[in-house]
């Protein structure tokens, strides 16, 4: 049945494409293709290895057919072999994702693979991030129904994708969201806007299968087969003020991540904000306690088979040295606080000058929980006080000032300070304290030509230690020059060099060409071993030395 469905869908897509992407039974076909490749060689200094396949590639083609209320799509993926940093389990090719969907005004149903998120994702987040190598799409049914304006009900049931396989365990959930300004007619134009929501997600995982570790360090643990997370949330806004909050609670879930304890989990996330023209301020807080919720108790890959998502509470930096030590959300326990402030000094003022000046300040602090051990495996594990904090996991402060110096020159200067505890990456060691300074200047010579210069410096109290082999340690400098010839070409050259207490010299040359919806990029150089995180979800990046290329197009 499955094979027949795939064939029919593929045939539909191919027929539609042959009809030049339009007009087939009134429907149309859209899609995109991405092909990334890599050649890497051994470099004993940075630690890169020869790859036996010589060429590694990740490729995908998404095709979507839409005809009125009906749509169908599929994605063909090929990992031959997977690029460095992607799990070897991705090796192979085939149709990784397919679905059919029907949508009316107040009703929608999807059969097949789908992505979904309830609220902030603290109870359910089925999503894909191709750069992290994460795809936990659910395959099953997703239903949305709106019985009246302002009320949205969702229901899902399915199994999660696991590389080319599927988790054996079932995920099911319900979500309801009420927007009072739509429900109550007299509130429709009110300055105060209120939305509340609630969700319930549970998984079923057999405790009978031999593979499941009934025996953990000598304990046969009485494992709950049904584990659930319930969450409530609110979103209140009044003029420029906003207040958002979500609380989730998880039932007993002994698993590999929490060392088989029976303590129930919870997470509280809050955000308060204020904005007006030229200014915005936001403060966020969260407390996470034993909230790793995965569809398999024993999943060895720490990023795989998550059902929920804990929102990140630190800024996702874009400059290289500020993002050298990204923070990975500790779903098993952390406390965090973040403040963010942006202000624009107006034109023709003392600090604004002729073109105005933007200032952006961000600070975050994340710690562990203050816990008291209560017996380890096969017990409730630990107790913790709600407001107690443990070791510092991560802290940062960044101040960015951006200013247009003339009609053609923009300049931004950033200072950042980062404290990083290596325990969050599973390593012992002292906290790293890094100071970072960035200067970023763009000169737009004319409508077609622009050049950008970037210089970064990082001073750190960390030193390269061969036994730990963290190649990010030490003091670094970096320079980058990027030339754009709009609308088609760009070329950039950069170099990062550990000039003190560190190791490595990482140069890169990159050339890109864009024509219409097609973009080709070639790069040659060295990639430092490290970690990349997107939204607090991370993966390792091994060292590489060689050529990379990327081709993307859409139709």
């Amino acid at each position: 049945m499955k094979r027949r469905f795939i064939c029919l869908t593929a045939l539909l897509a191919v027929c539609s494409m042959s009809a030049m992407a339009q007009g087939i039974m009134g429907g149309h076909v859209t899609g995109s293709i991405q092909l990334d490749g890599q050649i890497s060689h051994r470099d004993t200094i940075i630690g890169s290895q020869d790859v036996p396949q010589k060429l590694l590639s990740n490729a995908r083609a998404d095709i979507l057919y839409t005809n009125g209320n009906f749509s169908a799509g599929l994605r063909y993926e090929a990992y031959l072999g997977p690029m460095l940093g992607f799990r070897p389990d991705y090796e192979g090719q085939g149709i990784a994702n397919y679905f059919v969907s029907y949508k009316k005004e107040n009703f929608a149903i999807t059969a097949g693979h789908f992505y979904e998120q309830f609220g902030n994702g603290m109870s359910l987040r089925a999503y894909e991030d191709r750069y992290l190598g994460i795809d936990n799409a659910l395959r099953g049914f997703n239903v949305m129904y709106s019985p009246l304006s302002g009320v949205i009900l969702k229901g899902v049931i399915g199994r999660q994708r696991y590389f080319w396989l599927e988790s054996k365990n079932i995920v099911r959930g319900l979500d309801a969201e009420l927007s009072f300004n739509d429900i109550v007619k007299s509130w429709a134009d009110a300055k105060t806007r209120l939305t509340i929501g609630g969700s319930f997600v549970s998984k079923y995982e057999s405790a009978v299968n031999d593979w499941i570790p009934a025996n953990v360090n000598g304990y046969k643990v009485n494992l709950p087969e049904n584990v659930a997370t319930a969450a409530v949330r609110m979103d209140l806004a009044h003029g420029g003020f906003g207040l958002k909050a979500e609380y989730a609670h998880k039932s007993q879930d002994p698993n590999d991540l929490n060392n088989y304890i029976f303590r129930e989990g919870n997470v509280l996330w809050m955000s308060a904000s204020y904005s007006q023209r030229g200014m915005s301020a936001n403060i966020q807080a969260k407390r996470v306690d034993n909230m790793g919720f995965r569809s398999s108790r024993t999943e060895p890959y720490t990023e795989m088979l998550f059902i929920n998502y804990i929102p990140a509470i630190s800024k996702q930096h874009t400059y290289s040295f500020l993002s050298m030590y990204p923070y990975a959300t500790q779903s098993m326990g952390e406390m965090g606080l973040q403040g963010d402030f942006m202000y624009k000094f107006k034109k023709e003022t003392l600090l604004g000058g002729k073109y105005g000046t933007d200032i952006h300040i961000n600070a975050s602090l994340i710690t562990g929980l203050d816990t008291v051990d209560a017996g380890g495996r096969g017990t409730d594990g630990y107790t913790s006080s709600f407001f107690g904090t443990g070791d510092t996991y991560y802290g940062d402060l960044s101040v960015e000032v951006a200013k247009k110096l003339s009609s053609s020159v923009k300049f931004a200067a950033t200072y950042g300070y980062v404290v990083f505890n290596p325990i969050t990456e599973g390593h012992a060691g002292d906290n790293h304290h890094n100071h970072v300074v960035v200067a970023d200047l763009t000169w737009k010579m004319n409508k077609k030509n622009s050049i950008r210069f970037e210089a970064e410096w990082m001073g750190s109290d960390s030193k390269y230690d061969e036994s730990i082999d963290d190649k990010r340690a030490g003091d670094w400098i970096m320079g980058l020059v990027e030339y754009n010839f709009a609308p088609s070409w760009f070329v950039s050259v950069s170099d990062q060099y550990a000039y003190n207490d560190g190791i490595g010299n990482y140069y890169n040359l990159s050339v890109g060409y864009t024509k219409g919806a097609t973009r080709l990029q070639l790069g040659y150089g060295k990639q430092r071993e490290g970690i990349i995180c997107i939204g607090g979800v991370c993966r390792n990046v091994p060292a590489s030395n060689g050529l990379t290329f990327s081709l993307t197009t859409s139709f």
Partner: protein
Amino acid sequence: MKKTVLSLLTLVALLFTACDKIEEDQYIIYSGASGEWVDGNGVSDHTQRALIEKYTGVRCLNCPTAEDAINAAVAQYGGKLLAVAIHDSSTFTRPYPNNPDLRTATGNTWSKFFGVFDAGQYPVALVNRTPGASGWDLFNPISGINSYVDPIVNSEATIAIEVSATEAEGLISTTVNLEFLENVGDNLNLTLFIIEDNINATQLMPDSEKNESYIHNHLFREVITDVWGTQIDCTGAKGEKKMTTIDYQVANSEWIIANCHIVAFVSNRDTRQIVNVAECDIN
């Protein structure tokens, strides 16, 4: 509309029952078998043996070569070297479709503890759980085994160990006799586990082809005691003789008891290093 609401309420009710609550006194249902230690009759065989634990996987193409090397070493040492093949939860151990799952939670626990899983390189082996210069003395059996085994089997035993086992209606009764040949102290544990021979499961071979007729031998099935062993009630003084009998009810109907063996070893409770080991058939 009424039907819709009723359907939704029913669905909500069903979902809210979808979470199990385990009471605190039910958290642990088993914490490893143990038996009473009594004075024994002594052990006539004072052989010092070694145990090689091979971490392997059905998708590991060099593992069959390692298995051949280990089989050759077992034959060479004539009963002084015992072997067990452990499948943890690495990428290499994922079973092929329609094949038995050879992975075990206990194997995974050991793999993680001894640094095998984190190192991620298979095949890898450990003899008598010996510490290395840093971490554990893991090695690739294809590169040679003798240098790891010789220092052990060429030394005099400090504890002699003998094991025998019987089975009736799935209950395996294992008797272990110990004789202390030197003063070794009382910081000792006894670990018993079950291995099985002659299991057919598809194996990736060195030529990258899958062998659907591959036979797996001395496959680790399950630990009988706590994974780190049960405490030996002894003084550890030279001349002391101890004996215990430990029962274990087989819960897995896929095991063929006639192909199973019991491995028993004494280890240091703190260092986890194996002192001596013995193996027996199940009668």
